[in-house]
């Protein structure tokens, strides 16, 4: 058991952090609200890292913590999820993709369907069809997270190949770990902003961060963040090791990340006071991603219920993925 990063992993994390800090400032996330095409300047850089979708989950998670930290717009997470499921089978020339889960009411949306080349569609059976995105009818679904575009699929494809259920299960667990990594990244951004604000903002002639009410709030936020981050790293390791704990660990990671994100976005906004719910301040750019992510691949409650099935045995028919 070793949670320490290898030199290569540290380099990957630091490279991602610097790249995204430079290429995805708040101004880009804000500009994306009105002009989704602004993601293209960022994508030129992120496209070089899509092979992470086929590599170790630990590496992918380290990178996604950083894309989460900046609420990066564009199909990076979608492409990693796509390549994790279909990447070995499809034309290596296809660099972008996304996933559609047909007949799954917990995961009804298709990420970034208007700016990817391919869509891997999972149908009941399970079956898999990989089709060109331009051949599909999709409908845009406006949502509070302006940095991510969601769609619904008009009609499933006529033809699909059988998909090994074990492969789908492995992909599902990996997908949960990856999204959880992005969630702890966005939560860390909001936490860092709130901590900084608490140190700078003065009331009653002192920084508000000197008040115990604020200190204890930040201590609890910090604990939630650190344990969720640890849970994500553990989950990624179980994915890479195909460990028997994998399914549990990935649900734990998503539930812990969901709880941390919600606590931190709520308390972070509270610490920011009035400025925290203005359009002008950048906080809302990140609150939006943190809020929407919790519902992307099953809510915190859904993951807890799956965990209950694994820990206590099922008590009802399992729906969803």
């Amino acid at each position: 058991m070793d949670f320490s990063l290898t030199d290569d992993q540290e380099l990957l994390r630091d490279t991602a952090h610097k790249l995204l800090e430079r290429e995805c400032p708040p101004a880009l996330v804000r500009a994306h609200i009105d002009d989704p095409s602004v993601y293209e300047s960022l994508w030129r850089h992120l496209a070089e890292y899509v092979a992470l979708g086929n590599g170790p989950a630990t590496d992918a998670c380290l990178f996604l913590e950083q894309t989460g930290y900046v609420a990066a717009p564009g199909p990076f997470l979608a492409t990693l999820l796509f390549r994790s499921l279909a990447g070995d089978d499809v034309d290596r020339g296809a660099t972008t993709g996304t996933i559609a889960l047909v007949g799954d009411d917990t995961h009804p949306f298709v990420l970034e369907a208007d700016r990817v080349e391919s869509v891997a569609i999972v149908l009941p059976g399970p079956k898999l069809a990989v089709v060109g995105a331009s051949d599909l009818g999709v409908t845009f679904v406006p949502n509070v997270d302006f940095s991510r575009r969601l769609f619904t699929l008009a009609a499933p494809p006529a033809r699909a190949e059988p998909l090994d259920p074990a492969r789908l299960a492995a992909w599902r667990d990996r997908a949960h770990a990856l999204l959880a990594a992005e969630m702890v990244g966005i939560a860390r951004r909001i936490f860092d902003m709130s901590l900084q604000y608490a140190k700078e903002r003065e009331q009653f002639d002192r920084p508000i961060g000197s008040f115990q009410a604020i200190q204890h709030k930040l201590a609890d936020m910090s604990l939630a963040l650190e344990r969720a981050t640890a849970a994500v790293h553990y989950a990624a390791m179980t994915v890479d090791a195909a460990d028997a704990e994998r399914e549990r660990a990935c649900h734990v990671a998503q539930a812990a990340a969901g709880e941390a994100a919600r606590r931190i976005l709520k308390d972070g906004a509270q610490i920011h006071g009035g400025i925290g719910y203005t359009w002008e301040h950048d906080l809302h750019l990140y609150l939006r991603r943190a809020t929407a992510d919790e519902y992307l691949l099953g809510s915190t409650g859904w993951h807890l219920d799956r965990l209950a099935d694994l820990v206590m045995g099922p008590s009802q028919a399992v729906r969803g993925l």
Partner: protein
Amino acid sequence: MQLAWSAEDEAFRAELVQFLDAHTPPQMQRGFDSYDVGDAHELVPRYLRDWQATLFDHGWMVPGYPPELGGRNCTPVQTLIYLETLASRRLLRSGHFPGYAIVAPSLLEFGNDEQKQLVPAAIRGDTIWCIGMSEPNAGSDLAGLQTRAELRDDHFVVNGQKVWTSYAMIAQKCFCYVRTDPTLPKHKGISLLIIDMDTPGIEIRPLRHINGTAGFAEVFFTDVIVPREQLVGSLNGGWAITQGSLAHERAGLWVESVSRYEHTIENLVDLARRMGRDTDPVIRRKIAASYELGSSLRALGYKGFASFAQGSSAPEHSYMKMATSEAGKAAYELGMEICGPLAPVSAPGLGVEDGRYVHMFFMSFANTVAGGSSEIQRNIIAQRVLGLPRR
């Protein structure tokens, strides 16, 4: 990042398992929960003293220490494996933690050569120690302690009172923090003395725990003469040692705390089945959330705290201390909820496991107070980890 342990570490584990299989006394098989409900008639039963000595003699008491101190010079990772293995078998190392967990590391760091001679017996458990820290008016504000030690030529004269002093009734020695200079700012006038508990002028009044057993005591000092050689560290330099010893107390405790918590959650699953509550969606979600908490805390422990098992005094201990103590309390509450109307019933045969969950709930009140309250832990996290201003 990888799940697998190295071959050397697996060999270490195998050797430990072999030792435990061969030497664990039968009385230990009942696990450590029973101590919480207070069914040990003796404060530190004989078999537990023998067990600690056996561990020491085989180099398994504090494996990171050298053999003469009851160890085998193992690595920090191996210490973690050791603690994890004991916890998974719900085995205690000792019935009295102050000696090996606080006194020994503090003396090794701050004691003189003569005082270091006391360390092996402290770790082996041959000497039982108590820690004289808390006073009626010095709890969380430990630096406000008022027990006075006046230096007169070659000895101190100690007057004052300690309280919540665990093991004081059976201890031979006290690691006692005293005020040696009341004119200095409060953190700067404190010294640490080793006081023999049979010294004339010491009176011990046992205090009963909320569960009715006597686990700690009040200790009164009236003109107690303590030779000057029993000063540890420098005169008025005691505060630095309190910082070390509090951290030592927390070091490595997280593995046991997390394992105990995870074990409680396993028991709650069984309890829910027995009480017919395992299909109740509210209970199911609460148990799942508890499982998630335990699992993520274990990951956090592994991730950030492996080195602390060796007793470093980094403030991040506070995360695990605060989280596991609060989680434990909530788990026993959940146990009571699952028991329903039988929760408060303690009569044998009538209630659920003789009122185990309500007893454990009461006992868990100590965990969020002793060794630094949850509020103090949050202050430490805010100020030392997050860098927020004190004022």
